């Protein structure tokens, strides 16, 4: 499941490119339409290939997203003059440019549009999570039981993928397609090292992501490098730290346990 985000983040490219080609505008509504369409096609295509050819799902995923991404690349390079899309920007994002975007004034503060969009997405996702937590929980743990309870697991799955597409398309302009994957996977993986309860993991994920953003920005201004890259690297640093220091399965703790065990054994032998 972790890599479905990867697949969608790449497959959104043709969706957005096609929308730009047709409309020649960068309005939010059109971007969302393109992203949702592409996300749906990706998930559906993965399932279709997997079911019809009996290729394993991860392999079907590999076939699907590389193909869709390449179609996007071809579209953008062929119609470069018509599509106001910078490949580099889609891949790596440029958070620094956000300040130059036209903004809206809220309580006297000039807030750039991407920030407003991301805040809206955050609210929307949180709302969905609160409303459908129970359904998503049982569907991801035991889809058989979920179906038997009468929960429309297909809708839950596709709904989740749609929301994922939405989050990814709005993240494009700030962190880019590649960094999005890191931001989707890394916080939850780090949190999973620390806790065994889903609600705790969810809360930790949000705080970790904020930490990546803050420390990444500082690192970027210090090194004068890409902020998105710095964020992911600081995320990995946090992951390593948690891995070493985790009170449950931390490397250091395991090391101490091993050492004590060895000492005890030695002691027993000496007796």
């Amino acid at each position: 499941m972790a890599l479905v985000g990867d697949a969608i983040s790449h497959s959104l490219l043709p969706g957005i490119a096609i929308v730009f080609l047709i409309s020649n505008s960068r309005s939010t509504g059109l971007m969302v339409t393109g992203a949702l369409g592409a996300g749906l096609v990706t998930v559906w295509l993965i399932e279709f290939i997997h079911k019809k050819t009996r290729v394993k799902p991860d392999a079907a995923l590999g076939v699907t997203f590389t193909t869709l991404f390449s179609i996007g690349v071809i579209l953008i390079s062929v119609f470069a003059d018509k599509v106001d899309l910078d490949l580099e920007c889609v891949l790596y994002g440029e958070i620094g440019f956000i300040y130059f975007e036209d903004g809206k004034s809220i309580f006297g503060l000039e807030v750039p549009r991407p920030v407003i969009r991301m805040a809206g997405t955050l609210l929307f996702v949180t709302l969905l999570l609160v409303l459908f937590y129970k359904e998503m929980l049982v569907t991801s743990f035991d889809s058989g039981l979920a179906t038997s309870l009468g929960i429309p697991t297909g809708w839950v799955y596709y709904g989740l993928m749609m929301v994922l597409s939405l989050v990814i398309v709005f993240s494009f302009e700030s962190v880019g397609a590649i960094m999005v994957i890191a931001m989707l996977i890394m916080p939850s993986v780090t949190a999973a090292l620390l806790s065994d309860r889903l609600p705790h993991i969810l809360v930790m994920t949000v705080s970790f992501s904020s930490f990546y953003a803050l420390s990444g920005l500082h690192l970027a201004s210090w090194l004068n490098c890409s902020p998105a890259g710095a964020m992911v690297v600081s995320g990995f640093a946090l992951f390593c730290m948690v891995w070493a220091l985790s009170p449950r399965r931390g490397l250091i703790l395991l090391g101490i346990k091993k050492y004590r065990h060895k000492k005890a054994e030695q002691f027993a032998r000496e007796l």
Partner: protein
Amino acid sequence: MSPENSIPLEIHDLTVAYHKKPVLYGVDMEVPAGKLVGIIGPNGAGKSTLIKSIMGLVPPSSGWVKIFGETYRKNAKRVGYVPQRESVDWDFPVNVMDVVLMGRFGHIGLFKRPGRKDREIAMACLEKVHMAPYAKRQISNLSGGQQQRVFLARALAQESDLYFLDEPFAGVDAATESAIIEILTELRDRGKTLLVVHHDLTTAKSYFDMLLLLNMRKVNFGPTEKVYTYDKLQKTYGGRLTILSEIAETRTKQSSDIPLEK
């Protein structure tokens, strides 16, 4: 509509195919209320597929299913399910209580959370399977038998009238097996109907009131004493005589009689 005056489960001409290969052909049956029914058959006989297609997990290619005289969807609340233990990821970040509470989800409305009453029911169900002290335990720290008990507690929390259990005795210790059969018998005595996919022919006779012998088709369905015969079992298992004669031997050793209709 009370459960007493309608048939818990009615299946007509149920056919299921995977990748265009049929795995179940035209199964017809009517299960009366208050029975503990064993589903018996060789590997690949479609035992799991049968219960999955009844609950809509696997779409049937033809036929229909009625639960207490209605479609499955309408009466989903009255059905409890224990899937095969291996069908879920036991490293999933939830604890025992969380899993048992999932059994309450069918009774909790949309947008709502399990309340105190649901927690009390879940706890009572955990006590029934002797797992109450493990309520806060992470599920990956459970043994196979404990996992199965948690699944059973979850099904109990569903408070259903009709239960489907997919190999609840697979890979569990003897203590768990007898605890499970005790609970199933108690449910049966309270008028519930239970369908259990079962692998072990030696125990099938003593556990179940009725047996469904299945090998892609319904070979036989009826009261255990009428169905559990040498001929019918041989027909179900495609004449794998060695296995069957071994069973017959152990049966006679246990001084239980397997009627040899020869």
